[in-house]
């Protein structure tokens, strides 16, 4: 009986040790980004009809750094960063950098008013197919992808960007 009791205790301790070790290993490392949104992954191609007319297709921008920004007119942080994105566009447009805004979950008129209000001159168009945000793993707005000239993701940023961050991340993608 004593042996049985000891056996049960040792078995329980062994099980706890295995679980504790596995849990410790999982929590000690930062959770990895999902595969398709990790730096180095090739950004999914997409096309959007622009509010200003014409079309923007990501795959046609190979050779240039492309900054893809997901936004909506009702999104408060989007309003904060819009002027900063326009400033970055003015600074880098002649240095092989393209900026493209993808408007999601919004009304056409509200989006156009937003563009006019902030004087945005870079390409902007709606996600009419309702698939681009999902394809990019977007969970909130704003979200910005910095894509290198080879089409691979350099960095993904969730939340509003500061002016300094926009410049830093563009420079990083240009390298």
């Amino acid at each position, binding site marked *: 009986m004593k042996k049985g009791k000891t056996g*049960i205790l040792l078995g329980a301790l062994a099980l706890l040790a295995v679980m504790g070790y*596995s849990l410790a290993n999982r929590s000690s490392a930062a*959770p990895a980004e*999902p595969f398709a949104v990790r730096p180095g992954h090739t950004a999914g191609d997409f096309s959007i009809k622009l509010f200003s007319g014409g079309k923007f297709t990501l795959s046609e921008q190979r050779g240039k750094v492309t900054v893809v920004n997901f936004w909506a007119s009702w999104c408060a942080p989007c309003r904060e960063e819009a002027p900063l994105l326009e400033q970055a566009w003015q600074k880098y447009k002649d240095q092989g950098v393209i900026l493209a805004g993808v408007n999601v*979950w919004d009304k056409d008129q509200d989006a156009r008013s937003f563009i006019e209000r902030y004087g945005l001159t870079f390409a902007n168009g709606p996600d009419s197919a309702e*698939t681009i945000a999902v*394809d990019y793993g977007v969970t*909130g707005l704003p979200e910005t992808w910095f894509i290198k000239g080879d089409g691979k993701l350099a960095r993904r940023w969730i939340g509003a960007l500061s002016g300094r961050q926009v410049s830093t991340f563009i420079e990083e993608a240009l390298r």
Partner: protein
Amino acid sequence: MIAMRDFLVAILIAASLTVISVTQAIAGGPVVPGDQEVRQIAENLVCPICNGQSVADSNSQLAQDMRVVIRKKVEAGESRDQIMGYFVDRYGEGILRAPQNSGFNQVLWWLPALGLLIGAGFSVIMARRWNANRRAFLPVESGSIGMTGEEQERYHQQLEQALRHDS
């Protein structure tokens, strides 16, 4: 009278429930081929921004977009595994309602059964031990400790000798 009243109330409730069910079925609209599969896949995905709601049940715009993507992939002939894998690649394994049965997650699948077995085994051991202890304290009746008649006779003679010796 009371029985009749109860009967009528029961009929009224049953009729109301029937009307509600039929109305909902009609309001659901025509069933599009692939609806069932889209719904089943969406039910197995957690909306990333909706506090535990499934993609099937959430009214958020992201969930709506996800359902659009699921439908397009179903119509394109992609398998359930491929579609689920697509979402895991973009949102991580946390988007699955049930953890995948691989790696450390296997523990989540077999641990409850193992726990039940251990608990049952422990209960059996404790019950047997309790019974054994209980028997040890029960008053001993003649023959209850399993001695033959001859052994009992010898035991009684030894007992009497010991008592006579003490006195």
